[in-house]
């Protein structure tokens, strides 16, 4: 099973204080710590577990710049066989469809049975997976919470629905899946693991390698443009319950019932 996982390097929300920059059009990026998008990490772990059972290789690819190589290396340290950087100045400012177009071109350069993306980038729109599948004309399933490889080039996948129900579907290969966090428990990767893959070459694919014309991607090709970026005004804050412990417990139960948290 040849698996491609599309990953993205994002500012780590748990290790940064996201603040607007002085111009007010983006976040302050000077002091940011970046890491792999959480959902993408789950996707790579899932891919590794699938090939551990069914054989094959895992390729991780990202559309970005040299800085983004670090997440490719981290996923290779985790066990991915190959890392690929897809980079070109012409790609800067691409919208979601632009990214999907670029990835589509890359997929065409290889033979992949299964393509995984994370459900949503922490700073993204949960759209690339679906768009990529449409461009490839592959079947697509989103919010996947489990994958089982069946015979006859099929997968049995599940998705969690609001309310806690689980939906089971069958999908043909080749396909694209967007992976939900919590599908597995990703293995730990530390500095040592990354050092061990430090010497492995990561090839870069440029626009001309993929045969992508200038108008299709990048800022020029973007059909969705960012207009504004702001932090919402803070609300009142939490309701602090006063009273004895027993009184507070009763009040909390009341509130839970009233808001539908208890049946």
């Amino acid at each position, binding site marked *: 099973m040849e698996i491609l996982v599309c990953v993205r390097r994002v500012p*780590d929300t*748990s*290790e*940064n*204080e996201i603040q607007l920059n002085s111009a007010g059009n983006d976040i302050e990026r000077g*002091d940011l*710590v970046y*890491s792999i998008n959480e959902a993408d990490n789950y996707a790579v772990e899932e891919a590794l577990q699938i090939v551990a059972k069914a054989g094959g290789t895992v390729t991780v690819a990202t559309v970005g710049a040299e800085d983004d190589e670090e997440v490719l290396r981290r996923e290779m340290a*985790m066990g991915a066989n190959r890392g690929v950087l897809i980079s070109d100045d012409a790609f800067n400012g691409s919208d979601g469809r632009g990214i999907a177009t670029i990835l589509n071109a890359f997929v065409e350069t290889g033979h992949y049975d299964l393509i995984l993306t994370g459900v949503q980038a922490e700073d993204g729109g949960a759209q690339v997976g679906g768009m990529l599948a449409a461009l490839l004309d592959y079947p697509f399933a989103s919010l996947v919470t489990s994958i089982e490889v069946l015979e006859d080039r099929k997968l049995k996948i599940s998705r969690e629905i609001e309310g806690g129900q689980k939906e089971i579907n069958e999908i043909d290969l080749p396909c694209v899946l967007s992976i939900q966090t919590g599908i597995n*428990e*990703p*293995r*730990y*990767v*530390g*500095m*040592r*693991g990354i*050092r*061990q893959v430090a010497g492995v070459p990561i090839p870069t694919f440029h626009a001309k390698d993929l045969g992508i014309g200038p108008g299709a991607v990048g800022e020029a090709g973007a059909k969705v443009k960012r207009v504004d970026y702001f932090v919402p005004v803070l609300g009142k804050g939490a309701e602090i319950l006063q009273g004895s412990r027993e009184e507070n417990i009763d009040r909390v139960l009341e509130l839970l019932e009233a808001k539908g948290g208890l049946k």
Partner: protein
Amino acid sequence: MEGMESVAQVTSSLASSLATGRILFLLIHLLGIVCFAYIVAKRLVPLLRAKPDLRFDHPWLRLGRVLQFWLGQWRQPRYKLAGTLHIFIFAGFILLAIRAFSVLLVGVSENFVMPGLAGKAGPIYDVITDYAATIVFLCMVIAVIRRVVFKPARYAVPAKFGKAHTADAVFLLSLIAILMLADSLFAAARAAAPAQAGYPVEALAAFSLPWMLKNALLSASLSTLGRLYFGAYLLHELTFYFLLCYRPFGIQFHVETSLFNIYFAKLDREILKPVRWGISDEHLDQVKSFGVKTFEDFTWKHMLDFYSCADCGRCSDNCPANAAGRPLSPRFLTIKARDYSFQHYPIFGPGKNGTALVGNKDSGSIYTEDEIWSCTTCGACEQECPLLVEYIDKIVDLRRGMIDDGNVPQSLQKPLKALESRGNPYGKMEKKRADWVNAKQFQQACPVKILDKTNGAGTLYFVDSITSYDDRMQSIGRATARILDHVGESFGILGAAERDSGHEVRRFGEETLFLALRDHNVEAIRASGAHRIVTADPHAYNALKHDYKDVPAVEHISQVIAREVSAGKIKFNPVANDSSVYTYHDPCYLGRHNQIYDEPRDVLDAIPGLKRVEMARSRDRSFCCGGGGLMLFYEPKEDQRMGVKRVQMAAEAGANVMVTACPFCMVNIEDAIKVAGLEGKMTAIDLAELVDQQIARDCPDLKARSIAAQASEVKECVALSAK
């Protein structure tokens, strides 16, 4: 008298009765020795396949420890009854050793007498050993009764760890008792023989076991005595060799291995085992696999530890994780590994291939992941073990193996990632690490310098992560700074240049990340130009003292305060609240690991009107609060929090204020007070906070003076205020 034989004839009649068995006895000797040698050789096989362990240095120091812990049975009295019993049994064994050899050799060499015991020493030795055999026999009886009737809790085997060990214990104890009986009967028969010739019987130690048996045999005929003499000898020899060859199959192997285990025990308990002995930190990339994943990854000394465990249960009895109901029981860490080695390296038959030690029981693993992550490295187990079995190194090594394989609980992955990116487990920004010094009133009263190449000071206050970033613990930082200021210490902090000390990072097995944090900190410490380090965090203290190389000497704030109190530079106001009863909780990394027990207590006792009580478990028996560093992030499976147990111990001791000297203890104890439902009845305060609160600050000018001038000025100031 007619028909009466002489003493010599009587004795030689016995001797000749024994002589009939000479060939048999010789055969048994040979068989016994060959079997024992073979078994021991087989037991050594896994040690030859093990990883290296450099324990051949300082032979005199090691011999000294053998005298203290092996011959001196130093750890035994920590459990009074069992300890006393064992001291007697051990002393008996040592004293009887020569006698045993004599008896064994008499069977093949008729007139054998041990060199040195031919003259006057002989009978004296016989008297001593008569009593020794008696005492050992009595101890066996008491031990069996303890096992079968009283069943001390620490001997119990939880169901998940297998069947009870009582039967095997009783079997071995009985065999030793039989050995004593056989030896005594042998002596008794010979002693009683002269009675048959009408001569006075050989004197034996009065009221000893041989003496009692001799009296019972006074009317036995010479031929009966001859048969008993022969039988006792045979029984003694068979029992002796059976025990010798059986011991290596169980916990009694400690009889042979204990001396070696203590000789090779760690000299400096606080230096953690490196990833691989013989490979320096710079060359670690040469090591293909970190940590212990299979049995052969243990060092030979670790394997010797497994052989040497006497199954006494004292470690688990004191293990806070065990008391909390976590899956960890140190005793069974050892016993399971020992059983694993017996299974995979059997005496007869081919060995079996090893599997991963940590994992699923069905795939042959002996440890679960939670078992290994549960340990807080408090050191209570190592403090207790009479055989000096080492645990922390093994736990750290097993964790290294899991980290190497990426097998880390999600709850720990997040803080580890944050430590890598931001140098603290909370993921907070580096530049905010020193924000705690900017608290409005504090900054005006006690400005704290941030040290670097251009801005130096003699003393570095190493704050570490929790005190820097946690809202509650920042008050410990401010209290510490005010104290240092009060005593005129020229100090500063590293600020944003400081990273987590990495103390738990290393103990959770992430050696690479630890080395990165350490190297960064060492550089920053050197750049600060400080020639002295002070910290209020025992984990940082331990790391700077033992894990860090080439840094200035480090002190804990309690040591600084204690010194300044006895020098008269710190004076205290009396406590405000008469009804407060204080108790001091020894933090594991200040007390047990670094033996700093008295300084914090001296400080508390210097505060006028402070009523202090001691908890039952204090000093080196202190009970861990729950652990610090990364342990605060781990989600254990437990019945009750360690902190809750500790807070209840404080309440039992009659205290309503717990004083501790560690920010992690503070987190756990304050939390536990709430969980235990003792809010309003119990409070906790840090030693630095308490000192800061109670310091008599009647000389505001003191701050601006140099340390040299202060000594005389304090006297002046005190004299002035006394007027």
